[in-house]
């Protein structure tokens, strides 16, 4: 009997291999750990350091219909617990990206999610239409929340009506899973989540970086050429957890949580709060192996807590 028990124990400890596999709104992933748009390039940049096949998904840097030059430099400044970036969505455009990077990405067995943006409703729709037929694209993340472009970007994401219009316009042009990416600087994230769900979103990403600013007190000039930018990194994590928790109460579609993940701890926190998957952003710069470490840490945690599937963690908060 004691022997039997200890066998059970042994079994539980050693043989239990929790499954991390998920199917997020039709996107099959080996695990729920992705890399966030703009922090991992288009794939090749980190390929020497990170085995892309081990990632849940790669979300590429934001793509617009035509190539776009972005903002002047300086484009980034480090602040305590994070950084402020104002890249300004520089990208090679739909054609440039598809020709230059899709052949590379197709060689890997990893979900590819393209982050798209436009300066007008029509541009959003056009980009969606383009990617609808591009082989190897698994889903579209709609960036309606970039704090660093004058037109488009965030200006869409902070109004319910324009958010609804963008999502509907994109929905009309593609059968790909659609993932609107929400802006953090709103007072009622639930309403934005709901309006996306109602207009055909299959999942939601939250959150994008926070409008923020740093000034050089000696020159009295803004440090970023764009004056302000978006704050990301550990500093914003507790705010992101709250937003994910609120969004989870408002919608049924799965959530991809983003914001200040540096280890499995923050990822697990996000999933308990309501996220089905997570994306690592700024931490890729600090420690390129972060996403892989999160995957391992998540697996260990599930085993330790006797969970056989990662899904058991999702929305498991105890109130």
């Amino acid at each position, binding site marked *: 009997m004691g022997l039997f028990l200890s066998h059970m124990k042994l079994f539980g400890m050693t043989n239990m291999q929790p499954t991390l596999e998920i199917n997020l709104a039709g996107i099959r992933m080996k695990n729920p750990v992705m890399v966030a748009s703009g922090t991992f*390039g288009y794939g090749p*940049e980190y390929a020497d350091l990170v085995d892309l096949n081990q990632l849940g998904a790669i979300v590429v*840097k934001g793509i617009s219909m035509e190539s776009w030059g972005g903002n002047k430099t300086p*484009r980034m400044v480090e602040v305590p617990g994070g*950084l402020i*970036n104002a*890249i300004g969505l520089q990208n090679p455009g739909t054609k440039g990206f598809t020709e230059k990077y899709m052949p590379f990405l197709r060689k890997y067995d990893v979900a590819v999610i393209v982050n798209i943006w436009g300066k007008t409703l029509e541009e959003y729709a056009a980009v969606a239409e383009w990617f609808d037929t591009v082989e190897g694209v698994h889903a579209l993340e709609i960036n309606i929340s970039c704090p660093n472009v004058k037109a488009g970007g965030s200006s869409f994401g902070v109004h319910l009506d324009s958010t609804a219009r963008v999502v509907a316009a994109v929905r009309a042009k593609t059968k790909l899973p659609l993932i609107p990416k929400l802006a953090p600087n709103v007072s009622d994230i639930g309403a934005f989540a709901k309006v996306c769900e109602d207009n055909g979103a299959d999942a939601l990403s939250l959150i994008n970086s926070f409008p923020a600013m740093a000034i050089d007190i000696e020159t009295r000039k803004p440090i970023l050429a764009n004056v302000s930018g978006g704050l990301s990194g550990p500093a914003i994590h507790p705010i992101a957890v709250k937003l994910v928790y609120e969004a989870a109460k408002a919608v049924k579609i799965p959530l991809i949580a983003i914001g200040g993940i540096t280890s499995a701890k923050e990822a697990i926190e996000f999933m308990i709060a309501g996220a089905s998957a997570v994306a690592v952003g700024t931490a890729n710069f*600090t*420690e*390129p192996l972060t996403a892989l470490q999160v995957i391992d840490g998540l697996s260990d945690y599930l085993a330790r807590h006797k969970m056989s599937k990662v899904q058991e963690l999702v929305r498991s908060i105890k109130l």
Partner: protein
Amino acid sequence: MRIENGTVVSHVPMGPHYRVLTLNLPDVTLTAIPGQFVHLRITQLHDAVLRRPFSIYKVDGQNLSILYKSVGRGTTAMQALGTGDLVSIVGPLGNGFPTNLAAGLTPVLIGGGYGVAPLYFLARTMSQRGVLFVGGAKAVDILLADEFKAIGWDVHIATDDGSLGVKGLVTAPLNTWLKSAVGRFTPEFYACGPNGMLKAIGDLAIKNNWKAWLSLDRHMGCGVGACLACVQKVRLNGQESLARVCKDGPIFESHEVIWDD
């Protein structure tokens, strides 16, 4: 490009303001060439999210050295690193200098402050000897002059306050030398230092139809070409574009660089 934890082999001051940090990096050292840099993580700064870029100053077997100056919170925290400590390194990064020079050309190196670090690695790698022009604010900012001499290079010095060598910018002794050299040598420039200096050297090269390989210094995020924080406007075969200093650079030929921002 690799990510590797390097053990601190030694960490010694070079004059009052600079230090040499030597790390054991079996993987990173394998492919490192002059002009490339490494991205160093300072774990002592709990609240820092960015690594810090440093040119490769020396590679001796599996040991890699950087020569740095403490200018802010990261490089100040680095001073605490002691022998045996582990430091996370991503590298080697960037394109590096072209090292095989066409026949008949004389390598002319121009460095400011810690800018001589990558130039020394270059000089040690080149088959050919040449001339070094080194500038700095004060005598204490003139680094490696003797090391360059020791390997047979002709060294010219300038300081802003005249405390060592010619008083003024490094371009002063350079121009004097160029006059004397006219006809006898055709120089090819390799420069690393402040933007003002790089631009001056670049203009000089363009005016005379020489080549100048300039090592640009930009604030960086990822260091691997992913974040687009470090871009520089360039002209490549007539086409204007934004190059990533970390990946497409940090070395650019003077004719490529568009200095407007």
